[in-house]
């Protein structure tokens, strides 16, 4: 059960100072060169003023686009291996939206599925989330269709909801309490604030979709939908739940590193075998994989969806592959 407080706008300074004073890095949406993106900030003034969402998702706080797993060097007749240590700086993700906050669960499902991923877990342990509920939305948003909502507390340690003069602060977890404890003076007693967020209509029947997908694998709909897809990875790379990665080595004659980088199932090389055979040879198969992975395989395997309805993919897509629209179509008979 959450503890509710009133966090006056002016008290944000106090909170930020306390978090920074505690040695935490604060990552928040900023407005740089006309683009909303996550950056380290030190004061509330650095935070973007009027934003819907960042372009990229918050997943990079726990699953960066490039991270080093190990290093090696070659010497006289020998090779020295050295494990990398994740640079798990204590970090507060401030101001991300509830949809993205809930996305970490989908990442966690994969990174702790059979093997516990040392790098992801170290970063998650060091990570705390102060989400902000949504008072705005756009046509790409469909959180309510996938079990979330503009005021959902899932994934946040503290969820702020804008109210007159500040925020309604729901302190949700132990991590949240610990943060609140750093600046107790900032959190005032809740005078009985109303949690008012934007309304996001439900676009499709998700349980129906998941069920429908079971017998739609060979359907022509995937070809039709994907005709305009150019096969880039923009959707996957902005997605808060897309977890695919590639492992590469960068080396010269003297040594090198093993790196983990983001990857995307939309790319034609993703499933290409060394033999030249490609089990997902066409863009339609790759598009289908993206939909099935999120709405069929995730529920089967982890009992959750691989999509939080943030709509980032729709906004990022160069050819407007509107996910919500395609899903609605797929959910129909």
């Amino acid at each position, binding site marked *: 059960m959450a503890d509710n407080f009133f966090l006056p706008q002016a008290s944000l300074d106090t909170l930020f100072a306390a978090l920074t004073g505690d040695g935490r890095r604060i990552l928040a949406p900023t407005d740089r060169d006309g683009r909303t993106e996550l950056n380290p900030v030190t004061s509330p003034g650095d935070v973007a003023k009027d934003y819907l969402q960042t372009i990229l998702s918050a997943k990079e706080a726990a699953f*960066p*686009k*490039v*991270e*080093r797993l190990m290093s090696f060097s070659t010497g006289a007749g020998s090779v020295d291996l050295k494990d990398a240590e*994740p*640079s798990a700086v204590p970090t507060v993700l401030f101001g991300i939206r509830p949809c993205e906050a809930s996305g970490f669960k989908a990442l966690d499902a994969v990174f702790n599925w059979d093997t516990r991923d040392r790098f992801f877990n170290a970063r998650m342990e060091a990570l705390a989330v102060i989400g902000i509920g949504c008072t705005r939305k756009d046509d790409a948003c469909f959180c309510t269709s996938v079990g979330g909502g503009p005021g959902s507390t899932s994934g946040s340690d503290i969820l702020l909801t804008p109210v007159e003069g500040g925020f309604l602060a729901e302190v949700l977890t132990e991590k949240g309490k610990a943060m609140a404890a750093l600046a107790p003076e900032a959190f005032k007693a809740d005078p009985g604030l109303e949690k008012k967020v934007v309304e996001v209509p439900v676009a499709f029947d998700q349980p129906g979709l998941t069920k429908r997908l079971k017998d739609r694998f060979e359907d022509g709909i995937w070809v039709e939908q994907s005709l305009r897809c150019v096969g880039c990875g923009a959707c996957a790379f902005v997605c808060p739940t897309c977890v695919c990665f590639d492992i590469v080595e*960068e080396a010269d004659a003297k040594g090198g*590193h093993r*790196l983990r980088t983001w990857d995307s199932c939309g790319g034609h090389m993703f499933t290409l075998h060394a033999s030249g055979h490609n089990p997902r040879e066409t863009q339609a198969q790759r598009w289908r994989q993206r939909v099935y992975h999120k709405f069929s395989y995730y529920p089967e395997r982890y009992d959750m969806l691989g999509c939080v309805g943030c709509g980032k993919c729709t906004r990022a897509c160069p050819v407007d592959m509107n996910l919500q629209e395609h899903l609605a179509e797929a959910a129909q008979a």
Partner: protein
Amino acid sequence: MTEPFEPKITAFVCNWCTYAGADLTGTSRIKYQSNVRVLRLPCTGRIDFMLLAKAFARGSDGVIVSGCHPNDCHYTSGNYHARRRWMIYRDLMDFMGIDTRRVTFSWVSAAEGARWAELVNEVTTSVRELGPYTEYKELALTGVE
């Protein structure tokens, strides 16, 4: 006391003119600074622009690209193709803020042994003055968590 900075210079040369010219420098016992490492290719036409970029990525502080004078290409026109490629690539490097002072393009013929020594010395000295190309060397580690 710190050691004086010794730049790493990588040279891409064609087999028929500049490599032979550098051989002549040796035969003539003309001395030059030892910072340069020469990579031999058949023709300047073979010198992919990516080789230059990789040389910097590998930590070169300066790069020399050299081949046959116009009209003297062993393969008649490899150097003309190379020249065009460099004209465009150099513009692009400059546009992207890469330090073009660190790339020297030249024609050194098989007869110009002294010229090769002079070129290497000039480049080595000027790159030594420019200092290490730190900002490029740092790239491989920037953006890796």
